[in-house]
């Protein structure tokens, strides 16, 4: 096989053993790589119905098809487990160098089973698997853990995926981190923590072989040179935080826990302001010609010297959403999250809920007692020191941090049960996953996309906001087109997440990012790598199949139509200010759009996958397990 080794590595932490599973080429043609391959491995290896933090929940990793080849932005991997935040499939992506090391060690995927009685880290040294004690690494941040592992093994090419202190404490939105990049959102770090797995280190020294290297080089060269032009300028210069002012202008920038959609200090947290005052360096992942990681460093105030790579989705959560106008506090919060291995978006949204719940008098000063402030403190919106302290308390599960560390759905449920309140109404999540930096009240197609995403609300899995923002539809209205649009945009994104290719390259094939612009080029890349004969319609199938395996996983875990919901606030509280003022996504609108969407997917009215659909996709082996 070209592009693949045909081998999946299984590691059993309970019994300290490992074995190799061979997969046939036909299997790879269906699941390809990245999140799709990881999701399939999870489907095959999980104990159905298990507690996500129990040994029956495996850690499943899918290397990228293009990792280790010169294909631009192909150095990524996907990771999947049952999410402790949502109870459904949690799938994430990360860049950096880890995937490349995996491919060079000749593994297409890894499944980690069981749980270790003591803290352990695992080294995969080409074919050899070693279990090492990790007690001395506990408490170390993600970056320091990687360095320590490189140091003690004398190899600066050793690539590790690690958890930080937040993962050790099983913060439910803890990340897995490699090379400063985060496999974020759905709580993979907590799953690793429950297995006492501190890190997975990979050393790969083999050649990566492809079917037609000359063609692959030519294609890659042209794409990488195009990627220096206008199509990626946004990412190369300001990075994604250039979104701040656009979102603010459209009334979509979540402010003070989504109470508003415009922030009066948006200028001060903008990508432009960060670039002008705090820029230090731009970094790239492996085999990436774009380089979007915009490193910014705080230069004065209490957090001077704090440094982190700033993305829009991290930024909104820990700036406007907390009413913070000093972006240097946000740099500090993102640094703290990245080093602790804690999701920035979930952290920001959970802190926003805590601040609002305090301002409404439900949480009180004494609820915030901690070592640093024995009398407690008052976390009003705009209080940066309070935000940093709460984030530290979450990471350590100290005091009320122990409640917040369970994410906004469980935290609000616990407080409401104790105090007879209704703080769940401003807990901003879908399926338990904290919301994103696009207020759904002003983006109706995205509201549908967000409700139906398999891992919970996500701007990466559903790109449906694009048609709203580009004005292709009325972003405040609903019509019969929305179901088809939500389907198309989510399957489009799934193609990129499966290969995986970073979506920032999407315009660099031909100048046009749509299917007609990208699919032929992606088919060429796949064929030059594997020797297959994929055509346009096969690329469409990649996205549909990827989405189908994730959905089937959820159905087997008990998903029903009511799980495709939106936050209460989005449905019942009209936006107060700005260009999206007055809008909600009503119950009727959402249910109408869900009907359209299930129909567009070829699913039943209840949102279930019929057997004919599975047969058409060549995935009928899933049928029995989901009762069709």
């Amino acid at each position, binding site marked *: 096989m070209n592009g693949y080794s045909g081998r999946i590595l299984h590691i059993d932490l309970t019994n300290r053993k490992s074995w190799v599973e061979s997969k046939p080429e036909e299997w790879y043609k269906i699941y390809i790589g990245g999140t799709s391959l990881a999701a399939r491995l999870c489907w095959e290896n999980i104990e159905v119905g298990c507690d996500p933090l129990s040994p029956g929940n495996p850690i499943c990793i899918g290397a990228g098809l293009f990792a*280790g*080849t*010169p294909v631009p932005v192909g150095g990524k991997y996907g990771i999947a487990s049952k999410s402790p935040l949502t109870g459904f499939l949690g799938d994430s992506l990360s860049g950096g*160098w880890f995937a*490349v090391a995996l491919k*060079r060690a000749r593994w297409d995927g890894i499944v980690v089973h069981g749980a270790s009685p003591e803290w352990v880290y695992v080294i995969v040294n080409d074919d050899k698997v070693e279990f090492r004690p990790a007690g001395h690494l506990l408490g170390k941040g993600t*970056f320091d853990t990687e360095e320590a592992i490189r140091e003690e093994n004398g190899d*600066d*090419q050793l690539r590790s995926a690690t958890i930080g202190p937040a993962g050790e404490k099983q913060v439910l939105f803890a990340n897995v981190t490699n090379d*400063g990049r985060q496999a974020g959102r759905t709580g993979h770090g907590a799953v690793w923590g429950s297995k006492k797995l501190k890190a997975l280190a990979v050393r790969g*020294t*083999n*050649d*990566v*072989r*492809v079917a037609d*290297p000359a063609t692959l*080089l030519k294609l890659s*060269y042209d794409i*990488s*040179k195009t*990627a*220096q032009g206008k199509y990626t300028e946004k990412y190369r210069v300001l990075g994604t935080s250039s979104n701040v002012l656009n979102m603010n202008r459209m009334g979509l920038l979540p402010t003070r826990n989504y109470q508003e959609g415009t922030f009066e200090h948006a200028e001060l947290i903008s990508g432009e302001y960060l670039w002008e005052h705090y820029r*230090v*360096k*731009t*970094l*790239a*992942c*492996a*085999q*990436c*010609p*774009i*380089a979007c990681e915009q*490193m910014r460093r705080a230069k004065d105030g209490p957090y001077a010297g704090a*440094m982190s790579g700033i993305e829009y989705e991290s930024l909104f959560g820990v700036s406007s959403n907390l009413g913070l106008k000093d972006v240097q506090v946000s740099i500090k919060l993102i640094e703290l999250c990245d080093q602790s291995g804690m999701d920035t978006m979930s952290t920001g949204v959970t802190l926003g809920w805590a601040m609002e719940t305090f301002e409404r008098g439900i949480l009180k000063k004494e609820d915030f007692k901690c070592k640093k402030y024995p009398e407690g403190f008052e976390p009003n919106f705009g209080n940066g020191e309070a935000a940093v302290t709460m984030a530290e308390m979450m990471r350590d599960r100290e005091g009320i941090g122990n409640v917040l560390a369970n994410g906004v759905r469980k935290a609000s449920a616990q407080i409401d049960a104790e105090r007879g309140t209704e703080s769940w109404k401003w807990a901003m999540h879908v399926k338990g996953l904290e919301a994103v930096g696009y207020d759904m009240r002003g983006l109706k197609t995205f509201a549908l996309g967000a409700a139906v995403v398999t891992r919970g609300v996500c701007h990466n899995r559903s790109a449906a906001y694009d048609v709203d923002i580009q004005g292709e539809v009325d972003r405040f209205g609903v019509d019969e087109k929305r179901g088809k649009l939500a389907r198309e945009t989510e399957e489009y994104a799934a193609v990129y997440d499966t290969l995986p290719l970073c979506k920032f390259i999407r315009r660099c094939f031909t100048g046009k990012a749509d299917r007609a612009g990208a699919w032929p080029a992606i088919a060429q890349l796949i064929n030059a790598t594997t020797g297959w004969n994929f055509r346009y319609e096969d690329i469409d199938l990649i996205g549909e199949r990827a989405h189908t395996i994730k959905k089937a996983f959820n159905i087997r875990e008990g998903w029903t139509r009511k799980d495709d919901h939106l936050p209460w606030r989005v449905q019942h509280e009209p936006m107060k200010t700005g260009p999206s003022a007055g809008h909600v996504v009503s119950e009727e609108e959402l249910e109408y759009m869900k009907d359209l969407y299930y129909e567009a997917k070829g699913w039943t009215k209840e949102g279930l996958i019929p057997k004919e659909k599975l047969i058409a996709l060549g995935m009928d082996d899933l049928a029995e397990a989901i009762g069709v």
Partner: protein
Amino acid sequence: MPTSTSKYMYVTNDPQKCVGCQYCEYICSYTKTGAFNTYRSRIRTVRAEEIVVTSIGCRTCENPRCVAACPREALWQDEKTGVIRVDADRCDGCAWCIEACDFGAISINPATKRVEMCDLCETLEEGPQCVKWCPKEALTLTTPDQRAQRARQKLATEEVIGLKE
């Protein structure tokens, strides 16, 4: 810090421009071995600190220490280009040259157990492939003197016009 005083050309990296993507390693290994394997690259990227990245290859030193260190006279320098050449029959992979090199620019080929280093892609008309591919134009083929000229020019531009990149 060790510096090369070479009159010869070599590939140098501007760490201000380098983003650490490793394309130079992918392309070098492919050019030299026909496969993608950054362990087989003759130019190596380094991430010294979170935001300090660069890549380093042979500096084609004058009076090269690697040549002097070789106990078997397996290494010598091409007088015209400065490229270090290896006699594969004489080299036994003892690694003394690796230790002698101040730039960490020599490595052992795991298949042949002989040392290898950058040869500036001298057999290719296009010259060094890493320079051709570098997406950020951080890599250039240069001499120490040319680097100095560029540094002076940059400083002058900044001081006179007050321009900074």
